[in-house]
Structure formats: C-alpha cells, structure tokens
C-alpha cells in the first residue's frame, strides 16, 4: 500500500530503545486455530510414538497370517498388512524412528545454521563474506547423493544420514538467519545497547537471538518437513533399519508390493507421512505470518466489487470531470475500513485542479478510484465520477479500454518505477502508440520520436534504446509524460509528478506540463502536498484531510484567505512562508489513520479553534459563495476575521 492508506504506521518514541520482540511466539501461535491444530497433532503424534509400547493395540511384529490384508475393523483399526500385522501398531512404532530421525536432523540443522547465520549477520566483514560464499556453494550440493554415499559406507545408519542432511541443508537457513541478524543489527536498540557498554555475548543473547527466533522457528519447521520426506524416502528404499522393524517408508514399500490386490494399504502410511509433513509446513507458515510485518497480510485480500450507489448531487455546469460523494473502503485483516468519505470536486476543460493534503489524507486513493485502478482490496462503496457524461465508477471493465490513455491519462509519483524495467523505453512507447493509433511499425516509431521531442528530450533516437534504469529520474518523468500524451487525452491525472525529483528538475517538469496544457488544452488533476506547486500550476484547489475534502476554492482565494483552519496550518508549514532565521512551522500531531476517525470534525484534535460543537457530529460542507466551500463550523467567521 502506498501513501494513501498507510494503516500500519507505528509511532516509536525516539528516546526509549525498547526491544519489540519480547512477546512469546509460542503463545501467539497457539492462539491461532491453525497453530493450535498443527501443534496439537504433532504433540499427540510424538507422545503416541514415544508411548508406543503402552498405547499400541498389538505387537508390531506379530504375524497373524489368517488376518492378512484385512481392511479396517474393530480389532485392527487401520487394517493389517500382507503378513497380518496390525498397521496402526506398526505406524506408532515406525513413528519412533521417523521422528527421531527428524529430531536428529533438526538438532544438527540448528547447531550449524544458528551460530553461522548470526555470526555472518552480526559480525559482518570477512566472517560474513566467507560464510556467504560457502553457503552459496553448499546450496548447490546434490544432498541425496551424499546421503547415499554415506549409507554406502555406514550400512543402514539413518541417524548419520539425518545428521548430515541437517548440516548440509543448514545453508539455506544460515542465509535467512544472516538476513534477520543483519537487519536487527541496524536497529536503534542494538546500537543503544552497544553504547551502554553491553558485552557482545550479552547483546547476542539478549537482543539479536530473540529477534531471530521467528526466522529460526520458520526455517526449522520447514526443514523438519523436508527431513521427514527424506527419512521416509530412505527407509522406502530399504536403506533404514532392516526388516521386520517397522518404518513408515518401509510400510509404503510393503504396501507397494501388494498394490494390485489391496491398494488400501498405501493410505495409512502415506496419509500419516503427508499429514505430518503438512503440519510441519503449516507450522512454519503460521509462525511466518505471526512474525512478518502486518503490511503483507492484506496482500491476498480482495474487496467485493459491486456497482457503487450513485451520488445524488448534480455535476457542475460544463465540467469535464465531476466527482460526487466518492467513498472508498479497504478490506484489511482487521475488517473493512473507510478511507474516503464523500469526496466531491469538479474539473473544467483545460483547467488544473490541485488535490492538496498531507500524506495519508486520501489524495492518491481519490485519483486511483477515479481512474478505476484501486488495489484489489479497495472498492468504491458510494458516489459517482461523471466524465463527459459517463459515470466512470459504474463503468464495466471492458468499456474502460476506450477511455484509458485516449481520454484520461496518468503520470505517477516515482518516475523511476513508472516504467516497466524489462522493456526499453522505445518498446513501451511504441506499444502505447500502436494501441491508440493502430499504426504500423515505422509510423509508430516516427510518432514515438515526435512525442519524445514534444517533452523536450534531447537525442530521442538514443533514448528509445535505453532501459528505464539507464536514464535519470527527470528523463524518466519526461518519458512518462510522453507516454501519457500518446493518446492525446482530455484529462491528465498527475499524482505528485515532481515529488521524487530534484528541485531544479521539478521546475522544468512543471513548466513542461504547463506548456503542454496550453498547446493541447487538456485538463489536469494535480495531486500534490506542495503549495509552491499549487501556486505555480493550479487554477482551483480541493484540500483533503483524513479522507475528506475540507476546502474547495480558486487558488487566489485560498492563498489570500484560507477558510479552513487546516488549510491555514498547512500553508504555514510550507517553506515559502517561513520567515528567515525562524524554524518552519509544523502542525502538531498526525493525520488520524483510517479507522480512528472521530465522529465530529476530523481535524478537531489538531485545531487551534476547536470548540465542543466541533466534536459532536460530522461537519458538513458550508457553501461560502463564489465557488467556495469549507468543512468548518467557523468558516464564515474565519473569512470575516481575515478580510476585516
């Protein structure tokens, strides 16, 4: 998620370097249903195998030939094998060698991976370089053949094989732990601990190791899954304990020999192996989800797409784009969250509207919603966006194709990531040109060069051959503008087009946009937090705060008499307004995150003019005449105060 809906912000105090990993992973694991189920199964399995002599209903070696190959029954819960032995009892006894093998592997894995990974990550330097090299090489070792070689020399010594497996596959885990230790080392509380004079072992055991716990548990449970697969595979190849000793793999091999007359026998052994491997795997995944940053948790979420309720407000006379009562909801792991409520604004043909606000105010979400390009977990709940008579928010996907690039185009915030890194600049431009003009190759090439000249790029012939990562940010933004103009759009949505650029380049890009607008007559929606950009480029502004528009007005009016306390405060923070030699003003506090919005005025907590009335109920837009509105109960008196 980007600036628009950053719901995962944390507010760390600068002074206290607290260790954030102190809560127990095991406890959080057992609180999830998945975690409880898998840990429960594994514990039961371990205990049952350990107590096999007590709990097994039959002797695993006792043959009852007259009961051979029987299906499940009251006497033999999982049936009998080809020699009439009880399958359940054999599984329980076989579990002992399988789980012991896994355990041996895990111990070796941890003993090798944890010290190496932490040493590489925490000490860095030569230690790191050597360990990383060795890890790279060992990761390519064909482990199975080494295990077979080992078993060639050490007859049926599965323990030695499992220990070797644990050590060899520690390479991948070492790499993961190294990465974790490296990131912890860079954190504030570790440097603080170093400054306080804690010794290295103290830092390692009290700070680094606990923070790597999550990675270690994840990797170890994934390894346990692999180890069990290999252990059963080796015993399947009869490289394990000699018959008649029960092993899971050996039972699969026994079942295979009678597969033509009794395929059922494959089920208990294979099923138990599968379930156990699965439990180790799910355990790892669950711990990863618990310890990972919550920002990835909403990745798979999708908000239901349905036709939004249309708005009732009438569009402005002659408007090219008229957004009314736009509300957007995002689906998050902790439920649905409103991120925009009832956003309305209009854009006239040929004009530039500034959409202004701090990050987190909802500007970018507004732009994306209008373009029909919200993330998968976002959906428009309410509102309409009439563009040339068509409601964009109710438009089926297919009809969007006729508008994109041809009527409405976009340039985005970070030019360096706006172009596909796998294709040359020329290839991308040509593709867009051909999609719009249905032209041939040569014709399209000419048009591409023309567009590049239009955005004042020198040497277009050379630029088309470059990949996006070979050109500078300013050049990339010009290429992006050229691409957006390829379809000769009537409306250009520019989402913070200069934020990521150097100041001198910023001015050039804004000049370019102004010139192009004069030549083509397109309208621009300019999303920005920069009042300097607003003053230079916009004719009207809509100021946004916490998912709402709080003020709408002509640019000159806003600069002369802002009618909302937020607009006023925001303008005071702009560097252009700062007095020489005095610190730049800042608005105390933060934009409240979606989901934490108060019932009343959303700016109330930070507002110098706040009264009891402000907190009581939602504040409506107040029409101040002359095309001005303000979402403030005091708007009229503010205006009178400043104009008097």
């Amino acid at each position, binding site marked *: 998620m980007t600036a628009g809906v950053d719901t995962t912000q944390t507010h760390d105090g600068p002074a206290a370097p607290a260790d954030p990993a102190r809560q127990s992973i095991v406890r959080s694991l057992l609180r999830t249903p998945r975690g409880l189920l898998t840990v429960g199964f594994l514990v039961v399995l371990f205990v049952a195998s350990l107590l096999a002599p007590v709990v097994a209903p039959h002797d695993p070696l006792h043959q009852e030939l007259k009961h051979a190959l029987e299906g499940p029954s009251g006497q033999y819960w999982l049936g009998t094998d080809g020699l009439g032995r009880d399958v359940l009892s054999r599984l329980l006894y076989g579990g002992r060698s399988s789980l012991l093998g896994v355990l041996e592997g895990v111990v070796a894995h941890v003993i090798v991976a944890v010290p190496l990974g932490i040493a590489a990550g925490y000490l860095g330097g030569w230690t790191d370089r050597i360990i990383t090299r060795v890890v790279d090489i060992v990761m390519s070792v064909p482990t199975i053949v080494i295990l077979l070689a080992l078993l060639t020399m050490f007859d049926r010594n599965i323990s030695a094989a499992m220990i070797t497996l644990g050590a060899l596959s520690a390479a991948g885990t070492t790499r993961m732990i190294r990465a974790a230790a490296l990131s912890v080392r860079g954190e504030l509380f570790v440097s603080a601990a170093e400054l306080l004079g804690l010794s290295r072992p103290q830092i390692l055991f009290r700070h680094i190791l606990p923070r790597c716990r999550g990675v270690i548990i994840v990797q170890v449970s994934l390894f346990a899954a692999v180890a069990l697969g290999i252990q059963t595979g080796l015993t399947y190849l009869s490289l394990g304990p000699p018959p008649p000793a029960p092993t899971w793999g050996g039972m699969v091999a026994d079942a295979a020999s009678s597969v033509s007359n009794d395929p059922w026998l494959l089920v208990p052994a294979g099923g138990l192996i599968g379930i156990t491997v699965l439990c180790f795997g799910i355990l790892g995944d669950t711990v990863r989800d618990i310890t990972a940053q919550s920002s990835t948790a909403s990745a798979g979420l999708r908000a239901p797409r349905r036709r939004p309720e249309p708005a009732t407000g009438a569009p402005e006379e002659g408007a090219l784009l008229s957004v009314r009562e736009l509300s957007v909801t995002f689906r998050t792991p902790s439920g649905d969250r409103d991120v925009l409520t009832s956003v309305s604004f209009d854009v006239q043909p040929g004009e530039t509207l500034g959409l202004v606000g701090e990050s987190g105010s909802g500007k970018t979400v507004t732009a994306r919603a209008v373009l029909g390009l919200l993330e998968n977990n976002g959906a428009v709940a309410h509102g309409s966006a009439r563009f040339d008579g068509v409601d964009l928010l109710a438009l089926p996907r297919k009809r969007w194709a006729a508008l*994109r690039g041809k009527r409405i185009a976009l340039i985005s915030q970070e030019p360096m990531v706006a172009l596909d*890194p796998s294709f040359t600049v020329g290839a991308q431009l040509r593709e867009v040109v051909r999609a719009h003009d249905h032209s041939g190759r040569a014709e399209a090439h000419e048009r591409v060069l023309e567009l590049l000249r239009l955005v004042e790029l020198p040497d277009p012939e050379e630029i088309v051959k470059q990949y996006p990562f070979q050109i500078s940010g300013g050049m990339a933004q010009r290429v992006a503008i050229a691409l957006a103009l390829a379809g000769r759009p009537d409306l250009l949505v520019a989402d913070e087009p200069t934020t990521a650029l150097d100041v001198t380049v910023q001015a050039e890009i804004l000049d370019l946009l102004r010139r192009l607008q004069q030549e083509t007559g397109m309208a621009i929606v300019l999303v920005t937090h920069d009042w300097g950009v607003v003053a230079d480029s916009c004719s009207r502004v809509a100021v946004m705060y916490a998912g709402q528009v709080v003020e709408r007005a002509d640019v000159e009016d806003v600069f002369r008499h802002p009618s909302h306390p937020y607009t006023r405060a925001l303008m005071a923070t702009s560097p252009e307004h700062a007095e020489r030699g005095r610190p730049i003003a800042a608005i105390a506090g933060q934009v409240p995150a979606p989901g934490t919005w108060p019932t009343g005025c959303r700016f109330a907590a930070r507002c110098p003019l706040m009264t009891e009335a402000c907190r009581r109920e939602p504040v409506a837009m107040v029409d101040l005449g002359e095309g001005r509105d303000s979402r403030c109960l005091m708007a009229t008196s503010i205006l009178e105060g400043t104009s008097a």
Partner: protein
Amino acid sequence: MLRVIGHRLLVSIPLLFIVTFAVFGLESLIPGNAAQTILGENATPAAVAQLNTQMGLNDPFFERYAHWVGHAVTGNFGSSVISGAPVWTSVVTRLGVTMSLLIPSLVLAAVAGVVLGMASAVRGGWLARLIDVVSLLGFALPSFWVGLILVSIFAVKLGVLPATGYTPLGTSPSEWIASITLPVVALSLYGITAIAKQTRDSASEVLDSDYIRFLRANGVPERSVLLKHVLRNSSIPVATSLGLISIGALGGTVFIENVFVLPGLGSLATQATLDHDIPVILGVALCFTLAVIAINLVIDLIYGLLNPKVRVS
C-alpha cells in the same frame, strides 16, 4: 552475461571438489576397514587384502584422492567392485534415462506452475484457494508415494499406462512417452506447486506495482499487460527459485526411478548403496554434481535473458 557464466564456472570448481572430497572423506571414516564393508562380514582375509591393494586402500588419504582426481580428469573412474564394469560407461548409459525423466519434469513444472500461478494471481477467488490446497498436497505428499498411487490408479486399475519399465526414445517414441508419463507427473508435482506459489506471489506484487498501474492507465491493452508485462517481470524471481527446485527434482529421481523401475542414475545409486559399491557411488556423485552445474548454468542464462539489468551491465 559472460561475467555471469564465468562466475558460475568459477564457483562450480569448488563445488566439484567439495562433493567428491566429502564422499572420499566419508570412506576414510568407515569404522574398521572399507574393503571388509564392501565384501561383507563373511569375506576371507585374503579377499579383503586383495581388494585393499586393488582399490589402493592402503595408501594415505590425500594420495588416494589425488590419484582418483588424476584418473577422473582423463575419464577413468575405476570399475564397479561388484560387476567389474567401468563406472564411466554405466553412468553414461544411465544418464539418458535420468535426463529424459528430469528435463520433461522441469519443463512441465515450469509451464504448469507459471500458468497456475498467473491464473491464481489474476483471478483470485476459488481458483487461488484451490491452488493453495493443491500446493499444500504437493508439498506434503512424498513423491514416491504419489508415484505408487498413480501406478495403482492408471496402471493397475485403469490399465492405460505401464506400471514400470523404460522404453528408449529411439526404440519407440510413443512407448517412451507412455513409460515416462507417470514418473514425470510424480516427479514434477512438487515443482509445479512450488513454482505456482512463487509465481502467484511475484505476479501479485507486479500487478500492484507502479508501472503496471501506469501502463494500464495509459491504454496498454489488458492482454498485453498480463501476458507481456506481468508475466515477464514475475518470471524473474521464478527463474531464481527454479535452481533449488531443479536440484531437489534431481534428488527426487532417486526415489522415482525406484518406484517405476527405471534404469537411470538414481536406481544405479540405490543399488550401489545397497551393494557398498564405492567407485560407482563416487561416479554417480560426480555426475549429479555436473548435472547441478549444468542446471545452474542454464538457469543463469534464462535469468540473464529475462532480466535486462544482467544483459546490459
């Protein structure tokens, strides 16, 4: 690009030494006497002494290793202590079987995995959940067991495909296909699901990236967005993960060849292990390592082709 290949070859040399040295080292760790282990407990002292001399087991460790390396470089890997057949010949004749199992499996895993992963990232919903469940199964079920289940369904019950055995491609292409179908499916299941998951994750990330939003917004047709831009960019991390998946699949041939009784390197290795045939297992280890190096090289090349940053710099 040349630098990438050069780097790969450079790290491959230590890999070759590590693997062969490890196998050799294991041999010297054998409690008691290697010749005794090979010949079994009932061997006469005279036979043990003869084998010791024949294999040079009385020489110091490093001398023996240097000796083996010296011979190996000229293509002489000794001969099987059981059959007396030259190791190199049996390894080379069996390599074809293993490759005709491994290569189709990897191709199937890559194609099916990428298609399923893309579909799941784009469509979401029930398809994504289905793929989640199937990939859990692919992760959890051991390939040899899946192979046996396939045999019991398609060979025993339906009788449409042979349960065991191998027909060389040269003898009969249709029978070759029939003989490798079930083994290839069993071997590739894990790869398919792992690649599907990786593709789904990276495609979801690419779908949410700025450049896809930008290209879409400015009129690149949806077909091209998905099949050209998303596919190309999400396949880069997939190519990386293909390396480890291939090494895993190479190991998997050991189990699959035993299930389907295919005369490949894997079954040679198993037999050598059961027979304590040290020269053969050394030859197989070397051959597997060379296969890994070849796989890594191919993947480096694919990666370079997919990622212009490697090609340009």
